[in-house]
């Protein structure tokens, strides 16, 4: 089947390409940093499970407790940690 027959003429190719504009760079970067963030989350959750004082700090002020533990409390890490602690 040629591209004329399947509808992929030049005009349509241009129109379809227009649909895929780039996502904001910051979003892409945050998603690319997920593996590192995931490792950080695993450490924080493990520590919260073993250390009652740290768990209380997280419950009282999650962002401050994350920062005090030496991690960057990015919005993604904070919201994900909230979810993980809720379900744990």
């Amino acid at each position, binding site marked *: 089947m040629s*591209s004329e027959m399947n509808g992929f003429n030049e005009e349509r*190719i241009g129109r379809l390409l227009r649909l895929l504009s780039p996502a904001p760079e910051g979003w892409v970067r945050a998603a690319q940093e*997920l*593996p590192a963030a995931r490792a950080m989350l695993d450490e924080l959750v493990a520590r919260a499970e073993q250390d009652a004082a740290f768990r209380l700090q997280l419950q009282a002020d999650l962002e401050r407790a994350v920062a005090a533990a030496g991690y960057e409390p990015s919005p993604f890490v904070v919201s994900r940690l909230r979810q993980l602690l809720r379900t744990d």
Partner: protein
Amino acid sequence: MPVEQSDAQLVSRCREGDPEAWNEFVERFSRYVYAICGRGFRLAQHDAEDVFQEVFARAFERLAELRSDDAVRPWLAQLTRRLCIDKLRLLARDNPSEADPDEQAIDDVLGELDEAMTVRAALDKVGDPCREILDRFFCRDESYRTIGEILQMPAGTIASRISRCLEKVRSELDGRDRGSQPS
């Protein structure tokens, strides 16, 4: 020109823990997920960002559960769709005027985005400089003048280059179709 990997090859590298593979995975599918949130479900930017991050977080956590590495695109589309609907329902709780989305209209948009991804894959195979010229013109909405300045090409030649590049993409799509026909 770098050889573009198939979706399945990329997913396989992600599973093996290749640190570069995840970056490429996000790069390859970020526009698709973004378009589903924005064009498909018309989410406001901050709501789309929540869904976008959640999609990639879940994809990262659940990539190992994917039954067929070739099916990653529909799997991501389905995941994004579900999370967009969850977001809209959450918003509707606070603001009942937010109606459930028109499923047929969403299907139509998703169908078009799927075709757009096929065209995008063909463009990736064609490679630079066509990839960059077409991306700047169609996806980033840059003018001939801006493209000319950035790529150090006379602005007057950009239109003809775009036309030639579109032909190349079309040929690539033709080749793909011929390749997929039974012999």
